[in-house]
């Protein structure tokens, strides 16, 4: 019965993927013909099928860039980087597009810098897996001790080494997970930042299309963002797209 259900579901799962691949090829063809807007539409169609890939997001970013839509271009290359943090082509385009936007972010705190490095090189999942291994080892040793009802010297030495490692790994995994979970958004169009979430509030700053800002709060159709200088302000949600 289960096999029958799987057989029934399999073609339904593959059909969108075939459609995704067809649209992907179509987008590439349109790009080669110089039709960046058409290519962007084709690539967006791929996303509608429920399938994605770092390469698709990169190509979509490139198409928007050629169509002079910097905000969506930044958005999709950031998404590509989220899908594949160590993809060289993605990292390359991300560096270029960030230079193009030119917005200098506030220098990261040591914690942020460490979290960014861990996120790029290991990832929150990798950190959590490492933590799990150390955690299981510690639990195993503790269980052994409880069962035997005695503490042997080698067991004590192993716990002295492993427990601090587990604590450090837990802190690093939490830091990385929090960094990756923190919502960030791309400014899709030049927008005004206001002091309070209201059209009537005074404009405190303007942010340019393509800037990436952390979201710190939301209220109705307004999002609170942290600006590069560390200040916070409110932007209309329609001007942002979460990565």
């Amino acid at each position: 019965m289960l096999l029958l259900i799987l057989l029934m579901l399999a073609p339904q799962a593959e059909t969108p993927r075939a459609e995704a691949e067809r649209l992907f090829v179509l987008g590439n063809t349109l790009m080669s013909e110089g039709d960046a807007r058409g290519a962007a539409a084709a690539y967006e169609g791929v996303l509608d099928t429920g399938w994605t890939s770092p390469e698709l997001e990169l190509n979509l970013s490139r198409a928007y860039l050629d169509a002079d839509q910097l905000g969506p271009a930044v958005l999709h290359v950031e998404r590509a980087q989220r899908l594949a943090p160590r993809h060289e082509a993605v990292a390359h385009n991300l560096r270029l597009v960030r230079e193009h936007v030119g917005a200098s972010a506030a220098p990261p705190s040591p914690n942020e810098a460490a979290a960014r490095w861990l996120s790029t090189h290991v990832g929150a999942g990798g950190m959590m897996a490492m933590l799990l291994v150390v955690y299981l080892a510690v639990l195993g040793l503790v269980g052994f001790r409880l069962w035997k009802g005695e503490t042997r010297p080698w067991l004590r030495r192993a716990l002295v080494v492993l427990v601090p490692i587990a604590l450090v790994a837990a802190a690093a995994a939490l830091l990385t997970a929090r960094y990756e979970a923190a919502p960030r958004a791309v400014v899709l169009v030049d927008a005004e930042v206001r002091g309070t979430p209201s059209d009537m509030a005074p404009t405190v700053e303007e942010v340019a299309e393509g800037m990436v800002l952390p979201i710190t709060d939301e209220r109705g159709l307004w999002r609170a963002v942290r600006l590069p200088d560390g200040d916070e302000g409110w932007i209309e949600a329609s001007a942002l797209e979460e990565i």
Partner: protein
Amino acid sequence: MANDERRVPSGWRRLIGLIALVMWLAPMAVAQVTVHAYVDKTTMGDGEVLLYTVEASGDFRDLGRITSPKTRGLTAVQTSPIQSWDVSIRNGQTRQRLRLQWQFRPMGTGTVSLGESTLRLDGRAYTTAPITVQVIPQSQRPSSALWSTGPTASPRPDLDQASDIFIRAEPSSDVAWLGEQVVVDYVLYFEAGVHPRNSRIASAWDADGFWREELNLDRFLGSRTVVLDGRTFEAAPIKRLAIFPTRTGTLAVDSLDIEIDVLRAMRSRDPGSLFRNPFSSRFERETLTAPRVAVEARPPPPGAPPSFNGAVGQFGLAVQADRHSVDVGEPIRVTATLSGTGNIATLEAPDWQIPTAFEQYPARASERINRHAERLRGEKTFTFTLVPRSGGSFVLPPLEWSYFEPEAETYRTLRSDSLRLQVVGPAAPLAEASPSASSDAFIGPLETATWQRAREAGPLWNQPWVWVGFGLPALALLGLVVVRRLRDRDDDTAAARSLRAFPEAQRGLETAVAHLDAGESRVFYAALDRTLRLFLTDRLGSPAHSLALPDLDTLLAERGVANETRDAALQLLRESDAGPFAPRPQAPPADILDRATRLMAAINDEAIAVETD
């Protein structure tokens, strides 16, 4: 009470009045931008230059296209206006002041006019009123009314003012930052009745430690009247310099000798006459010396940004490329124009890191210096010529250039937008998925994709595998602890029962004795047997009550009970076992209770001794 009733409406009236006032003032607060135009003079000589200024102030962001004002009877000295833009933030409100200045020369005498100027700010048009200026022959220009923009510093008391004519150098500041502009005016002071003309420098002159630029006093600057130590002088600037300290320390502008023809109205030989005799006047050549002046030059403060190259003043930066799409090998010219007030000649080109895909030629510099302003200002344009060597989309990084602003005593960094260029032609051999670090072209589109299901990637702690991975082992450990505790508790129960066995057995014997006293010998034996077996069960931790005597003997032996004690136990159990089944009730042996008591005490001691070991 009546007074209170009258007071309430009065309060409401005040509140309504206040609301009305706020509503009346609110539109005025919203309309924050003001634009107006003015000229530096409304009557001018035909040899003078007219300065026309359009000034906008308020909160605005975007400046539309600027067009020169329509004029009648005037010709423009320059085609594009000089812009100055100040931004200030007060109480969270941004206020800007934009000044656009044009210079015009009259084409003749008569009435000339400047038409309306329209400025588009944030998409809204602001129009200024037209201005009319009267141009008269230069010879008719009244001198005293003209020089209104000259130095206003008070005369220094240390000057020798014994003469009726003298010159002094008046720097705009005695202290300057390294590279800061100091304007030095050489001002001729003369008393009434003294008519100077035809001045010229009469000696060699230097200003060691300064970069020196002459400023033109091409407008006819008349004199102003000043009072020094109770004497009235006319003061007229005859020379203006902009000097820039090139090293720190106390620097001096040398004294300057100036020859000048002076006409003095001679007094009448009649001492009693109060009138001057104009017919007895004559010009005499005199050499006047302007004393040296010292300027203390300070080094710029620490904290200079990396792109600071020593520029001091107020500047703006504009960058543009002559095209944004070229073929491979076709040159692109990018111009970076620095404009503002300061030492224009010494401004250095911004350091620009061009992508390696471009061949870059040394930047060419050209400058335009405006010496007619109160301070030296102008613009310097650096032209970068780039030749792309491969096709693709490129982003040229922004140019950064820093200067020190003396008025604000802070460094400011100008940053242009980055430029995006499309180069048509064969791309460099850039591997699709392995870009070289030196490449600055966007990669893509990529031909192959690694597909995955799009899903909302929530926080990691929302992933089930994390909870399973961490929770299950913890539960297993918890289970282990529980099992261990239960086992320990079982052990504790057996021990407790063991400890309680003997006192309970003694109570069982007392019950048996009660039956014996009542003459119920069969019941006595049954009670004795139950008491013995329960004692053995509790004490030995095994169900002795169901064991056959040989098995019980074996169990007692395993628990270390001595042979004599075991034999006595078996004997007593046989007796108590047989007692209830005797053909008729028999009185039990008199020592049976004593034996039972001693037996249980012995087993209690011996079995305990075995467990303790």
